[in-house]
């Protein structure tokens, strides 16, 4: 019983302390730029629940979801195709490395040029930035399939789609998940930026509006919301990651033990 308390104490301890310190240190703050924490929380409650949730927050998240899913689909598909053919990989490697090195936000003006400023643009922006880690990591994962395992599949005549499903994708899954994690961070950044740069609705747009019209408390609450979304998505990803790669973490744990 005390073990559980101790663990809870460690997990909650510092965050609670920091929260309390922030609360009391800012309680009477008259600083225009740093309003009291309790006012921020009030603004949080008033601003984001209700109409804004449906009109702005939800569309942003939906665009994020679609963009991310598309990036995963395109990235994995192309990654498998490129990773399976050595000549293709060699051919495309410098091109892909260059495209990946372009800072994703810089693609926003380009995509706006090609796709306007509607929803379509925002989704394309997310895909154009988030696809690279997925693609490149998939290529790497597919390339590194164990030879003995591949020979085993050949000798048991496991070919085509079955081979792709049971051997290639599962073998590459740890690497693909790494790419997916990086892609999620990029997708969130691009979702926010595409709305800050050119938009008429959405979470990023609203936060920038608050800042421009000096609605400071609301702006802080928006920053808080963005932070919470980032944390929530990260936790959700961790959850999925731990289930999909349960075998992988178990394997690594066994390997690390001294024999």
């Amino acid at each position, binding site marked *: 019983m005390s073990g559980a308390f101790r663990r809870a104490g*460690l*997990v*909650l*301890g*510092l*965050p609670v302390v*920091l929260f309390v310190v922030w609360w009391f240190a800012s309680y009477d703050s008259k600083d225009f*730029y740093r309003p009291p924490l309790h006012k921020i929380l009030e603004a949080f409650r008033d601003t984001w629940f209700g109409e804004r949730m449906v009109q702005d927050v939800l569309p942003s998240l939906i665009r994020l979801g679609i963009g991310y899913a598309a990036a995963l689909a395109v990235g994995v598909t192309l990654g498998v195709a490129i990773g399976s053919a050595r000549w293709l990989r*060699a*051919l*495309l*490697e*410098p*091109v892909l*490395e*260059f*495209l990946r*090195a*372009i*800072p*994703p*936000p*810089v*693609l926003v*003006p*380009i995509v*706006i*040029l*090609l796709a306007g400023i509607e929803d379509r643009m925002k989704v394309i922006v997310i895909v154009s930035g988030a696809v690279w880690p997925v693609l*490149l*990591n998939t290529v*790497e994962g597919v390339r590194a399939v164990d030879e003995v395992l591949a020979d085993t599949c050949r000798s048991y005549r496991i070919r085509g789609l079955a081979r792709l499903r049971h051997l290639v994708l599962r073998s590459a899954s740890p690497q693909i998940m790494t790419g997916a*994690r*990086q892609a*999620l*961070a*990029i997708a*969130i*950044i691009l979702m*926010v*930026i595409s709305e*800050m*740069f050119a938009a008429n609705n959405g979470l*990023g747009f609203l*936060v*920038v509006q*608050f*800042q421009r019209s*000096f609605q*400071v408390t609301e*702006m*802080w609450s*928006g*920053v808080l919301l*963005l*932070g919470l979304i*980032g*944390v929530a*998505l*990260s936790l959700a990803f961790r959850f999925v990651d731990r289930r999909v790669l349960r075998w992988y973490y178990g394997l690594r744990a066994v390997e690390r033990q001294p024999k």
Partner: protein
Amino acid sequence: MSQPVRAGRVGQVPALLGAAGLVAVAVALELAPRLGLVPAEFMPPTSTILAELARQLQRPEFWVALRDTLVTWGIGLGIAVAAGTVAGVVIGTVPGLRAATSSTIEFLRPIPSVALIPLAVLLYGARIQSTLMLVIYASFWQMLVQVLHGVVDVDPVARDTARSYRLGLFARIRYLVWPTALPYVVTGVRLAATVALILTITGELIIGTPGLGKEIAVASESNAVPPMYALVLVTGLLGVTANLAFRAAERRVLAWHPAIRVEAAAAL
């Protein structure tokens, strides 16, 4: 993503193919607008972009912008690396600190740095401090995670030996922790540098801090399409160069380092 070292003669074919790939893409992007497959005013042919790039290289404003970007990037990266290393070593070595701070780190780390943009603008306007705020915040976590992995990776037998000889905290850090953590530190710098560049350009693009990002935003607003593409090309080259340079430095440092380590898959 690590690349295997390729043996001399065998490596020539992939290199040739790679170069061929680049050329093929450049040719494709040259022909597509010319043949009308893509509207030329939205995506100019490669030759136009390259000509514009040459023109940009002759403008003093370009070099000022490039310098501004490099300065912001350098300062932000430097502060983040220093802070991340110190924090990582302290948290990793002082007993109990790691467990106590773990949840806080895992909570703060995934907060997207772009969430800080409005805050930065409010506090610092378009000055360099606002972009630095973004850069340092994001790069710090990259560095911290790597250094923590390095500090934790210390061989338990070596650690017990040091303890049995009653080495003080500073001695332990110097002889035990630092050599083990060094590869991770180097990897951390590389990852942090990549993130720092992205956020530098982002800050310049969105907030308007002087630099290449701001030039791109200006070009975008005034619909100067070829300059915009040329500048994007430059940022890509900057990223590739930095990546290659840091990987080379990493290989150099690790060439003599005997420890075998696995690059921790850290989130951006």
